């Protein structure tokens, strides 16, 4: 970003600072309000919730922006294309093959590692197949993605009932820790994976900036297109696994934060868009959780409200002919 930006345009760097400040403020409110003096219990308990929200927000935001960069479309997101449910299906299949007792006894690192590896492989297959079959028709891609999501979900719930017809509901709960109850081990593993993906992702940042220009231009500018895309999609698969493992499928949050990030930063540079999206997601989740818990006294997951708003935004985007 050159310093010659006109005074009227907010500079993305400044926007990032503001977003960071708001995020910190939300986090502080969340941690400190209404603690009731029981610090030694409340703080770790809330810290875990906060860490989950921030981690999930980060994973969803970054995976969505990267996915939109690769597909060259601002309406497609991994969640809308059914990838969250693909992860759920993989998880279910593992339990189906190994048996629930074996899975429960496995080391979380190992289990999560296996799940993520499978996720990367399968999402690569699905992506390859989709982009091969559907040439140029974004609407077809969108519809196929949505239907695939339904298919994965139905298959998963089918398998869950085959495994343990009587414990079906219990199983469903075990699959999804919510924001209120992330397991200790899982949170650590998820954090570690996200960190690893981020470090790897740094190498791709500049290439991603070029990918936005489209396939032909990117190749002309010397980007190894198919390799870069494969790498980016692998990272997306890892991040989708992280967020789904922690809180289950969240369909529209990514779309919401990614499009907000584009409009507030007003730039194509991933080094600025990605942090902005992640911060917006963290603000949305933490403040949503705070408002629901302390202001309205509800124990509802903020997910439901985000889905509602995100769905509306999605419709608006479709109406605005954003599916070029």
């Amino acid at each position, binding site marked *: 970003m050159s310093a010659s930006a006109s005074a009227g345009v907010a500079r993305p760097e400044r926007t990032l600072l503001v977003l960071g400040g708001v995020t910190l403020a939300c986090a502080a409110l969340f941690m400190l309000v209404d603690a009731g003096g029981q610090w030694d219990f409340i703080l770790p308990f809330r810290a875990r919730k906060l860490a989950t929200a921030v981690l999930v927000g980060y994973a969803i935001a970054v995976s969505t922006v990267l996915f939109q960069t690769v597909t060259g479309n601002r309406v497609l997101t991994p969640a809308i294309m059914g990838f969250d449910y693909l992860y759920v299906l993989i998880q279910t299949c593992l339990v189906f093959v190994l048996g629930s007792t074996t899975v429960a006894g496995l080391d979380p690192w190992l289990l999560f590692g296996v799940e993520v590896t499978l996720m990367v492989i399968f999402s690569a297959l699905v992506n390859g197949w989709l982009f091969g079959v559907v040439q140029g028709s974004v609407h077809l891609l969108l*519809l196929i993605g*949505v239907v695939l999501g339904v298919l994965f979900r139905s298959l998963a719930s089918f398998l869950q*009932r085959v495994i343990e017809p009587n414990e079906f509901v219990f199983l469903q709960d075990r699959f999804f820790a919510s924001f209120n109850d992330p397991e200790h081990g899982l949170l650590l593993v998820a954090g570690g994976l996200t960190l690893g993906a981020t470090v790897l992702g740094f190498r791709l940042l500049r290439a991603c900036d070029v990918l936005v220009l489209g396939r032909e231009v990117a190749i002309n500018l010397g980007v190894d297109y198919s390799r870069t895309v494969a790498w980016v999609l692998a990272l997306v698969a890892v991040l989708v696994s992280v967020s789904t493992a922690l809180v289950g499928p969240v369909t529209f949050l990514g779309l919401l934060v990614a499009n907000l990030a584009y409009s507030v930063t007003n730039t194509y540079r991933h080094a600025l868009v990605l942090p902005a999206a992640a911060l917006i997601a963290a603000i949305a989740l933490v403040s949503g959780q705070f408002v629901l818990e302390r202001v309205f006294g509800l124990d509802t997951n903020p997910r439901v409200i985000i889905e509602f708003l995100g769905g509306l935004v999605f419709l608006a985007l479709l109406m605005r002919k954003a599916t070029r």
Partner: protein
Amino acid sequence: MTRPLIAAVVLAVLAGVSLLIGASHVSWDAVFSPGPDDRAVQVLVISRVPRMFAIMLAGTSLGVAGLLMQMIARNRFVEPTTAGTAESASLGLLAATLLAPGLPVLGKMLVATLFALGGTALFLLVLRRLPLRSALLVPVVGLVLGSIIDSATTFFAYRYDLLQSVNAWTTGDFSTVLRGRYELLWVTLGLTCVAYVAADRFTVAGMGETFTTNLGLNYPRIIALGLVIVALVTAMVVVTVGMIPFLGLIVPNLVTRLMGDNARRSIPWVAVTGAGFVLLCDIIGRVVRHPYEIPGGTIAGVIGSVLFLYLLLRRGARVG
């Protein structure tokens, strides 16, 4: 005349199988030579026969409702679950349960119908506003609209501890059908007959407003009739057994591919195929994990989405 005969035989066989399988053992001998406790007859009369009728009625009416919707929206991919109709019916049912707990089933169903009508009308309004009438975008919009309505339902259901009921309305499950609990579904048969009587009008309406008006027919009235039938059928199925995803999309598409777009010819076939499809799903669900049951709606979700994908890929980018 052999084709209808074959169809009838297949349907009869499926229905017979549906009567014989289940957690408690029933054999034909026991039915026709009742023993001292005639338990087999009891099981048949109270549970199996009502279940078989419920399945066939739900399959028939949902298939025909899907066909009507496709004519009204002039899009091949519209059906109660891809237009927000089913989700609106669930929301209406929840509203009735929360606000008027004492309401009889019929009253709840009427509230659900009104909501289903409203949701579908909203969907049609949104369609009008869509900038480019891409045929493939229409079901996406409907599915998103459905999920928005669904999240509202989930929110209130979660607050008032009714999530389990909502889940029952959204997954078609026939295991709870007993005599005295499903009779409402017979009304859907009447609605299907109404659709058949008015079939030619729907065929014409499927060709567009101008064309219909030119032929001297009242287009808005035909559309209104179709919407009322669809909303009533959806509400009744949701109230009594729960929704079956994509049925109204798959069955009419397969039938019209073979029979063409004349509703008068295709409605009977859609009715029979729909009934057979749900029977098959329910039988699979009962056999896979005997003596436990997997809801027919879950099986239909798997088979239905696979067939939907097949339809999409077969058509490729060629859209009608």
